[in-house]
């Protein structure tokens, strides 16, 4: 049962790359409160996912009672939580990290998965009378195809987007902004997230990983963009610590943050693949001796021609490669820098620090290579 007096935190999206790190970090920094995670599936599946989260978070046996899992569905009203449930009397904080990140969702499905669900979380929040804070986890890519420096308080839902996921997250942010009139909401936009800096572990090899895996397997010929443009990537431990710091230590309702590497801590695209190659070679010297070339940075027009020829030849493997690449490369066609002025200010006192990606990529790549880019430990999907 959820202890009412000490308060609890409701987390959606707990099995995601960031969500499971938020759980892990919670047990490292909080010795009293409880966390309730909303999970989809049958009772058995929910319990299986909870067990996985406890294992992932390396939660000591004596602390495990502080993680409660409830079955629910964010796309349904009330999230599937019965009205008057004890949970609603204990919740002081909500971290809404749940989203469907697939890039191939239709608009209708993406809206249901990411906008309706966000509205449902807010509706539920209004019935949580002890509620103090809501952190809405968003993506820096709500900027869509805008170029240049993107400020933290900017949101343009009418811009062009690379996919319906981006659009739906922008609309979800818009919902959050409207709800700020009566709810204590802060929006945290994350960059591309990879594994932990300590051991490189990651719950899902998603996001940037498929592209790096293609590179490792020698299937990456080129990518669109200027070699000098920046690729904003953050490690999951930084993401989770930043979320907790901004929620717990330095919460200001109404703010939006770019939890991103920003201008000074991002790697230039032209530097990325030589760095990744060096990291792979440090783990697997035989890979380096294959002499596979680095992919070329090319213009969007050249990349489109390459896609065209791959599609024309009907080579199914290469077609899959190109389609996989596009999930990461399409945003690169509109170069931008995520401004982190507000984030840097609010993390300055005791917040987590982040250095340039070139300084912490090695364990990320080591883990990926050593596990053959396969998930070693993951919950059943959902």
């Amino acid at each position: 049962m959820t202890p009412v007096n000490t308060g609890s935190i409701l987390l959606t999206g707990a099995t995601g790359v960031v969500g499971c790190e938020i759980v892990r970090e919670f047990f490292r920094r909080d010795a009293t409160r409880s966390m309730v995670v909303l999970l989809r599936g049958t009772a058995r599946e929910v319990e299986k996912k909870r067990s996985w989260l406890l294992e992932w978070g390396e939660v000591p046996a004596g602390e495990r009672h502080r993680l409660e899992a409830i079955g629910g569905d964010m796309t349904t009203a009330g999230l599937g939580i019965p009205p008057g449930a004890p949970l609603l009397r204990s919740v002081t904080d909500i971290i809404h990290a749940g989203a469907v990140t697939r890039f191939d969702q239709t608009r209708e499905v993406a809206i249901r998965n990411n906008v309706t669900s966000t509205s449902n979380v807010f509706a539920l929040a209004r019935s949580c009378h002890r509620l103090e804070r809501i952190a809405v986890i968003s993506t820096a890519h709500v900027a869509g195809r805008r170029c240049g420096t993107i400020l933290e308080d900017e949101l343009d839902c009418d811009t062009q987007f690379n996919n319906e996921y981006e659009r739906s997250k922008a609309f979800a942010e818009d919902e959050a902004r409207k709800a700020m009139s009566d709810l204590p909401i802060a929006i945290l936009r994350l960059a591309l997230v990879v594994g932990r800096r300590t051991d490189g572990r990651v719950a899902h090899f998603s996001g940037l990983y498929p592209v790096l895996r293609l590179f490792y397997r020698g299937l990456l010929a080129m990518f669109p963009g200027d070699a000098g443009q920046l690729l904003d990537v953050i490690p999951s431990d930084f993401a989770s610590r930043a979320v907790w710091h901004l929620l717990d230590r330095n919460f200001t309702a109404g703010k939006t943050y770019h939890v991103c590497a920003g201008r000074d801590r991002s790697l230039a695209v032209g530097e990325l693949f030589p760095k990744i190659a060096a990291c792979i070679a440090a783990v697997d010297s035989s890979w380096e001796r294959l002499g596979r070339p680095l992919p070329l940075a090319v213009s969007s027009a050249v990349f489109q021609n390459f896609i065209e020829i791959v599609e024309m030849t009907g080579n199914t493997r290469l077609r899959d490669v190109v389609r996989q690449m596009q999930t990461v490369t399409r945003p690169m066609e509109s170069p931008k820098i995520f401004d982190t002025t507000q984030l840097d200010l609010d993390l300055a006192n005791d917040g987590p620090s982040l250095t340039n990606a070139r300084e912490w990529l090695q364990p990320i790549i080591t883990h990926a290579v050593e596990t053959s880019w396969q998930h070693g430990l993951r919950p059943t999907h959902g």
Partner: protein
Amino acid sequence: MAALGYYLPPSRRTVEQVVTAGQANSSAEKLIQLGFGSICVADDVSAEEMALQAVRDLQTRSGFDVDKVDLVIYAGALATSSVMADDEQERWGAMTDPTPLFRFPGLYLQAKLGLPNAAVIGLAQLACNSFQAAIRTARAYIVADPDIHNVLCVAADRFPRSAKREIVYNLMSDGACAAIVSRSCNTNRVLSMTHVSRGAYWDAAVSHDQLIAAYFPLARRVIVDAVDRAGLNLESIDLLVPHNLNLKSWTILAQILDLPIERVYTANIGRIGHVVASDNIINYVDAIDDGRIRVGDKVALFVMGFGAHWSCTVLEA
């Protein structure tokens, strides 16, 4: 290079005929979209006979006296081009008499040309890069041996009659080419050469997709390196002479090099397809005949071959 020549067998097949004969993996429509129109097929003409005809063409074009040849370098791109095997050749696994394995086309050529004073070397395992490797080897011999003044380089390849004619979305012709690399010659002067090999792709059937992915980055590297070694930049290259891979791939490579496609000699891609090791020279000769190359022009010849190899030679015409 003091003299150049080539031979293409007169028998032709259209894309549709190749597809109908079951010698392509792609549809005719797709191959036409990729820029192919027809290919040349040797039928009953042997590879060594095509080599001989290429030398005859060289003589006709230049009047070069082959008696001046000190060394013959015979470069066969296909494994079958290193021995004089015909379509009825006994399978190697069932072979009882191994002497056919010693029937070498370079020596046949020496005999047919009557060059008892010329040494003969055969180059193999270089696929479509064989001819550029022959030129490079010829240069090295000339530099190393003061008695060698003229080297006859020859490449000739003929696909087995039943073999597919499409390889990695490219249509292949049979054919041959020849060149005289001379110590003292002011035309077609070799300014630089680069050659990169990648054994990681030795089994093309397995590493097919990786090979395609590696193609553009390594193509760019060898071309840029060769141009740089020649003390030039890409802007000063008057014409890029390709191997006749599909036109779409050349459009992409030209864009990657920031070179207008008009400065790539693509006229022969649709007409003859990819002539294994010979199309660099075939295209170079035709570009001269077309007026696309004039004396003094800087020309880059690029080729990539299975195995895999990437080569570029920069010439001053």
